[in-house]
C-alpha cells in the first residue's frame, strides 16, 4: 500500500491491518491515521452527547391527537351505514307489495272501442242504463244475449253510426225501405269492451 492508497481507504476502512502496516512504515500517514482516529472518536462522542436532544414532548401529544382525530374520522367514514341497506330493502318490499296487489286484483281490461266513432263519450255507471231492465229511463235498450252489468262496472258510451237494421235486433220496428239507412246510436260498452245496450239518437221509440 502506498500513501495515496492509504489516504483513499482510510475514510472507508478505518484502522485495518493494511493501514496499520503502512502507518508503521510512514510517519506522515501515521499522523494522518492518528488524526483520523481522534476525529472519529470525537464524532462518536458528539453523537452520544447529542443523542439526548429530542423533539419536545408536546410534539408527541399533538401528533397523537392528530392521529386519533384522523382515525376517528376514518372509522366514521368507513363504518357500515346499516340503515342504507335496510331502507333499500324496505323500499323494495313496498314496491313488490304494491305490484303484487295490483296483479292480484280482478282483471279489468281496458274497453275496446268497436268501430271508429267520430266522437267518444265517457260515462260513469250512473249514466249507464239499468242493467236489470230491458229498457232504461234514458232510452237504452239492453242487447239480446249481452251479459248484465254490475253496478261497480265501469262502462263507456260511444256514439256510432249503425244500419237502421240494427233497430230490428233491438226489437224496434223499421220500415223495410229504410233498412239500409244509417242511424246514429249510443252504445254502452261493458268493462270487457263488449256492447251491452244501445240507444238510437233522434229516433222515435216505437
Amino acid at each position: 500500500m502506498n500513501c495515496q492508497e492509504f489516504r483513499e481507504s482510510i475514510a472507508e476502512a478505518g484502522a485495518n491491518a493494511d493501514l496499520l502496516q503502512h502507518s508503521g512504515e510512514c510517519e506522515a500517514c501515521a499522523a494522518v491515521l492518528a488524526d483520523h482516529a481522534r476525529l472519529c472518536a470525537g464524532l462518536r462522542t458528539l453523537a452520544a452527547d447529542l443523542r439526548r436532544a429530542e423533539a419536545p414532548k408536546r410534539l408527541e401529544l399533538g401528533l397523537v391527537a392528530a392521529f386519533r382525530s384522523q382515525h376517528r374520522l376514518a372509522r366514521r367514514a368507513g363504518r357500515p351505514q346499516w340503515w342504507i341497506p335496510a331502507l333499500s330493502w324496505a323500499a323494495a318490499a313496498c314496491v313488490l307489495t304494491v305490484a303484487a296487489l295490483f296483479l292480484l286484483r280482478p282483471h279489468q281490461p281496458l274497453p275496446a272501442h268497436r268501430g271508429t266513432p267520430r266522437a267518444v263519450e265517457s260515462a260513469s255507471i250512473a249514466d249507464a242504463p239499468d242493467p236489470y231492465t230491458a229498457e232504461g229511463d234514458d232510452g237504452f235498450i239492453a242487447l239480446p244475449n249481452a251479459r248484465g252489468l254490475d253496478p261497480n262496472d265501469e262502462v263507456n258510451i260511444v256514439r256510432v253510426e249503425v244500419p237502421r237494421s240494427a233497430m230490428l235486433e233491438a226489437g224496434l220496428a223499421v220500415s223495410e225501405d229504410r233498412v239500409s239507412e244509417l242511424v246514429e246510436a249510443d252504445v254502452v260498452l261493458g268493462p270487457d269492451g263488449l256492447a251491452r245496450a244501445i240507444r238510437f239518437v233522434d229516433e222515435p221509440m216505437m
Partner: protein
Amino acid sequence: MKVTPPETDDELFVRLRRGEESAFVALYRRRQGAIYRFVLHMSRSPEVAEDVTQEVFVALLRDACGYDPDRGTLSGYLFGIARKLLLRQIERGRVDVPLESDSEDAAIPELAVAGNALEDLTHREGIEALRRAIGTLPRRYREVVVLCDLEEVDYADAAGVLGCPIGTVRSRLHRARALLLDKLLNHERHPRPPVSALNPIRCLT
C-alpha cells in the same frame, strides 16, 4: 426465557396503517430524535427542527404518504421528507444559516477553547469545537456527516435520502472529514484569543 425481538419499522408501519395508535407512538418515539437532530444540525434552529419533525410525522399519517418498503427503509424515507421540508424552509427564508455556502474554508465560529482542538476532542470544549466545525461545512458535506457519522445512517440509506449514488456519499464523507480535520488543525495553528482577553468597546446587548 424467550425474548421477543422489537418490531421492525415496517411492522409498526403496517399496524399504524391499520389505525393502531400504539404503533404510531412506538414509531414516533423510535425515529423522532434522529429527525429532530438532523434538522437541528442543518438549520441550527430548534423552532425549525420542531416544525419539520412535526410535518414529517404528519406526512406519515397521510393515506398517500408514499412510503414504499421496496424502495428503501422507513428511516431513510423520514429523513428524505425532513430534508425536503428543510429545503422548503430555506427557500421561504425561515432558515437564515447560509446552507448553500460552497466555501470549504469557512472559519470555525468563536470557540470557547483555544489551542489544540483536535487533541482536545475528548473534552467538552473540543467536542463543542467539533460541533461548530461541522456547522461551518457546506451543506452537501454537513448532510453526510450528520447522517452517517452522527446519526449512523448507513451509506445506502444516506444515498436514498440525498438522492445520489453511494459512491458520492463515500466521497463526500471523505472530503467532509478532511475538511473537519483541516478546520480543527487550522484552529490549533491559529487559535482565537479567549473571550476574556478581548477588550469590549461597546456592549450591544
